[in-house]
């Protein structure tokens, strides 16, 4: 294979930290290369150097044999390299066509060039199998469609090498599968692709070759056909990782019970006739495609929303109206869906976030004054006990990696020995090492008798952790099934809303 892209000896330092250490990489014509690594391994930095967003301290980038000047995105684009960022860079108030043309055509002639632009866009869309409506406003498109526009934008600029940064992070699974099929077709049209990922299953499914980055160094390269997910996981993390396994044990009496709960938002039903019971020592998994009411279920159980009708009880006490503080006092541990927006205040220190939920408890304050020393020693305990890396009690929380921030939030709600735990997408965006840590903690809480409600979009996760599973579709819950009887097909059907509506009879 002729290399279309060669990175040689790339080194990039940020202050004392070396993000990339002597990394070399080649990409062959028509190849799909997966760049695999945990969060913080240096994948994005490497691709930003290739694309000219950062200037490398050492090393060279060659595209089609020609060396690129450093630090100039325009040079990379002109050489035929396109990048699709994880967070889209589209203008929502412009149309698809305008977004695609923006930046490659002089703005003044946008209007006159539009006819030619439209023809070129439609040609590309046809050739690569990426259907679009050129005149649709981007703000009205779904996430998957927006990503397609991002790809088209790169192709419009005659990209022959395409870099996709965590392309599936924002996609639901069927959309992700469709994306990889499309990418495969695109290589037949002569494109070469690099996609960045930390998800093993998609790397195995979609790539020809895998390059594994760990702590800034290229630790391995494998042909995808010659490797296994287990080997890649080990290479990526640097040690053997096994996700913890749920073991059967006695399940106790019901702790949290919802009966015919309805939650509304501006008069519209978000949860409708929802009933479930989570028992002592049980994990109840709620699976579903994103946007089917998970957020409202999370808000309900966090105390942020109240039932419009129906009842929510914790150990027999009504907890529908008691609010977040009441929930915390009642012994409910809550892991929110979005750790940055809800879980922690990034600008506060680790110790302040550690005690934020229980500032008013006598453990942490006396007569209105914060007992700083007690708070800090509690935070130090959490750091130790939950293996929160890179943290001291005084570290600013936003400097923690996603996994360590999640461990902090998890530690905060598990350390009090909660009766009920809400875990809403607890591993979203985490890497393999952090995922197993989070799973282990949740299962440990289950062994101690906590009732856990797990909301997840990852089927493997739901099946691995849950004792029973219910699907959520358009704000309604299916009947529970035992996780041991559930296979992907059955759950897939449940998530599509195919279940017997027999609970009125039951």
């Amino acid at each position, binding site marked *: 294979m002729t290399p279309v892209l060669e990175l040689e000896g790339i080194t990039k330092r940020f202050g004392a930290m070396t993000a990339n250490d002597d990394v070399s990489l080649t990409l062959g014509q028509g190849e799909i290369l997966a760049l695999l690594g945990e969060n913080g391994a240096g994948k994005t930095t490497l691709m930003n150097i290739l694309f000219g967003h950062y200037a490398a301290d050492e090393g060279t980038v060659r595209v089609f044999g020609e060396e690129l000047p450093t630090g100039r995105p325009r040079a990379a684009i002109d050489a035929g390299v396109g990048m699709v960022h994880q967070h889209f860079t589209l203008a929502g108030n412009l149309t698809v066509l305008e977004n695609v043309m923006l930046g490659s055509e002089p703005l003044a002639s946008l209007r006159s060039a539009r006819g030619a632009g439209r023809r070129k866009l439609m040609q590309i869309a046809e050739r690569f199998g990426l259907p679009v409506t050129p005149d649709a406003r981007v703000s009205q498109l779904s996430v998957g469609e927006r990503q397609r526009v991002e790809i088209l934008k790169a192709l419009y600029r005659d990209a022959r090498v395409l870099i996709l940064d965590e392309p599936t992070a924002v996609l639901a699974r069927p959309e992700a599968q469709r994306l990889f099929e499309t990418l495969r077709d695109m290589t037949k049209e002569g494109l070469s692709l690099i996609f960045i990922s930390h998800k093993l299953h998609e790397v195995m499914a979609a790539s020809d070759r895998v390059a594994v980055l760990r702590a800034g160094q290229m630790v391995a390269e494998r042909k995808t056909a010659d490797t296994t997910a287990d080997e890649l996981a080990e290479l990526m993390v640097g040690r053997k990782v096994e996700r913890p396994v749920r073991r059967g044990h006695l399940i106790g009496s019901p702790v949290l019970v919802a009966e015919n709960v309805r939650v509304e938002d501006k008069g519209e039903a978000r949860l409708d006739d929802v009933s479930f019971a989570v028992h002592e020592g049980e994990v109840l998994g709620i699976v579903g495609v994103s946007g089917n009411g998970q957020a409202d279920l999370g808000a309900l159980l*966090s*105390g*942020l929303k109240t039932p419009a009708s129906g009842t929510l009880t914790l150990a027999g006490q009504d907890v529908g109206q008691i*609010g*977040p*503080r*009441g*929930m*915390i006092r009642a012994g409910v541990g*809550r892991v*929110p869906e979005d750790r940055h*927006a*809800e*879980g*922690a*205040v*990034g*600008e*506060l220190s680790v110790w*302040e976030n550690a005690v*934020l*939920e229980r*500032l*008013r408890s006598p453990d942490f*304050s006396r007569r*209105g*004054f*914060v007992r*700083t020393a007690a708070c800090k020693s509690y935070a130090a305990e959490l750091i130790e006990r939950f293996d929160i890396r890179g943290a001291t009690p005084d570290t*600013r929380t936003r*400097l923690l990696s996603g996994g360590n921030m999640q461990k902090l939030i998890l530690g905060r709600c598990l350390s009090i020995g909660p009766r009920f735990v809400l875990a809403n997408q607890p591993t979203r965006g985490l890497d393999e090492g952090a995922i197993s840590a989070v799973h282990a903690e949740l299962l440990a809480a289950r062994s101690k008798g906590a009732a856990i409600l797990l909301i997840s979009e990852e089927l493997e996760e739901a099946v691995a952790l849950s004792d029973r599973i219910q699907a959520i579709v358009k704000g309604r819950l299916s009947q529970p099934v035992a996780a041991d009887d559930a296979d992907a097909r059955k759950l897939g059907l449940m998530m599509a809303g195919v279940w017997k509506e027999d609970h009125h009879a039951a």
Partner: protein
Amino acid sequence: MRLERRAHAPLHLIVIAPLAAIVAALFLAGGLIAAAGVNPFGAYAEMLRGALGSRLSVTEMLTRATPLILTGLAAAVAFRARLWNIGGEGQFFVGALITAWIGHSLSVPGPLGIPILMLAGMAAGALLLAVPAYLRLRFSVDEVVTTLLLNFIVILFVGMMIEGPLRDPLAFGWPSSVPVDGDFRLPDLVPRTRLHIGFLIALAAAGAVWLILARTVFGAETRAAGLNATAASFAGISLPRTLMGVAMLSGALAGLAGSVEVLGVTAGVTTTMSPGFGYAGIVVAMLAALHPAGVVAAAVFVATVFVGADAMSRATGVPSFIADVVVALCLLTMVVALMFTTYRVRR
């Protein structure tokens, strides 16, 4: 060129930022002074001499700094919680008016009356800000608009009161309210100057505010709510209660400024008793990066500009309005300087 967020704002930058902002503001204002045909360096030297050149001028400057410390604290407390209280001027005036009103007819011994009058001024300021805060909570009314416009209403109301029911008959037609009883005047801090113990009260207030913000549950909850309201409310912190608490504290501080100014300096209320203490408090708070200790330093600086500008004006003929220009420019340059402490420029 792009801006990159810093992991930590380094300490030296936090100290340098306000100094750089002040230098930049003086440089820009220097252009105006030069345009007026005066050497800016000479003019600034006059300004310094006027504010710090003698014992008397220093006491005068500290007298002026006293209400600025309090209005600066009021703004700092509110801004930390993202309550945009632009109404310090109005709260200052209600505090002053209530103090003069009650202090004119109150018949208790001085040492008892002074705290009562100060509490009354604080309560008035707190109530005045509680209204916009409530409107924001209940109806999402923008408090920038309501607090700002309330200033004009309050000043007109003060004007009405001192023309009417509270008019001082002994002021020879000069529009002033009745004075507070002589027993309630704050003792001088330095004999035969205007500097009164209100300056110490302002310093104590700065200490108290620091303690509240840094060490209490209320302070911690306020900080969390100001930095990330969603996370704070997820953690069970009541946002309405925090906001109302902040509003009461902020309004009380600005009301106290008015009260202290009446008890320590003016005795009666006039509509011209404040050269914009409430608005200048916003600049003070910004220059201080919202830190209580910084507020004291920034208030001293702004007072230096205010007092020094009068001397400069007398010596050079440059209008003393230049003081307002310098202070306003400081606000703008400080906002720019703050950006550089949070972000670094990368090429």
